[in-house]
């Protein structure tokens, strides 16, 4: 019925995730990007990549129908909204 993800793909996914985790730790702990929120942004960027990989491969979104992708995206989009508007208030108060 649905796509079966073989062992070696799962292993590759895991390896990538582990490598990215190490990157997160190293960049956050030992690379100082100076003032501002650059370290934060970098860490969030890597975390987003990791989340995308989990969503795509472990959670099979890559092989899944449009609808489930849309549902996942929908959650994220509305979350972005909550973020966006709350910040507009806080930063311009």
């Amino acid at each position, binding site marked *: 019925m649905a796509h079966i993800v073989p062992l070696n793909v799962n292993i590759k996914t895991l390896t990538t995730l582990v490598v990215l*985790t190490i990157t997160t*730790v190293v960049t956050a*702990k030992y690379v100082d990007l100076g003032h501002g929120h650059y370290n*934060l942004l970098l860490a969030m960027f890597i975390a987003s990549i990791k989340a995308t990989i*989990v969503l795509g491969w*472990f959670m099979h979104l890559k092989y899944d129908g449009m609808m489930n992708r849309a549902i996942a995206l929908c*959650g994220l989009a509305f979350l972005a909204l*909550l*973020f966006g508007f709350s910040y507009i208030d*806080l930063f311009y108060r």
Partner: protein
Amino acid sequence: MSTAKIDRRVEHSHHFSSMQQEYEAGKQGVWIFMATEIMMFGGLFVGYFIYRFAYPEMYIAGGDSLNWVQGAANTLVLLVSSFTMAQAVTETMKGDNKKALKYVIVTTACAFIFLIVKYFEYSAKVHHGLFPGFDMWNPDMEYIKSHIRDTSLLANFSAENLRLFFVLYFAMTGLHGIHILIGIGLMFWIMKRLKNNEFSSKYYTAVEGVGLYWHIVDIIWIFLFPLMYLI
């Protein structure tokens, strides 16, 4: 069939018209629940960022006082468990309940390891008076000072604000921990059914659903780890 006494599903429930339809419906239902999970944790993340920009130094101080090695270890544990869970789904889809069961057991073991590490972390925090409730808040400032990476940050720093960091730390990791506990419950349910050989290449919705749930729990941790421990 020779395995007649085993309650193996070959027939869809009465209100569906095919196994395929039932499978897709079930999976979609789980996905929608995942969207609600995203929104729920999302609210906490919004709170996190708002206060982070309001009191950056307290987040640095708070984060530095956490044990990032334990955090990183837990991240790896969860990643591995995600992998074994994904593999369990793969095996179930192939119809091999036995192999799948083994993978689920490893996943559950990882979940327990995670909780044990968490227990040590929490008790260390409580020990240093960093639990912001039940009148236990009594921060050990020496401890904070000895961990902070840049002592100049302590200049404009108040214990009250530090409290906010630990509020969010305990709220977010606590809620995440509760999800892990629920996950463990679901794992046991799945294990029982795998043991009974209930799944087949035609019917594996439950395993896949639990898998999806487990991966979402992992994703949340992927964000929590750098935000709490590293940055």
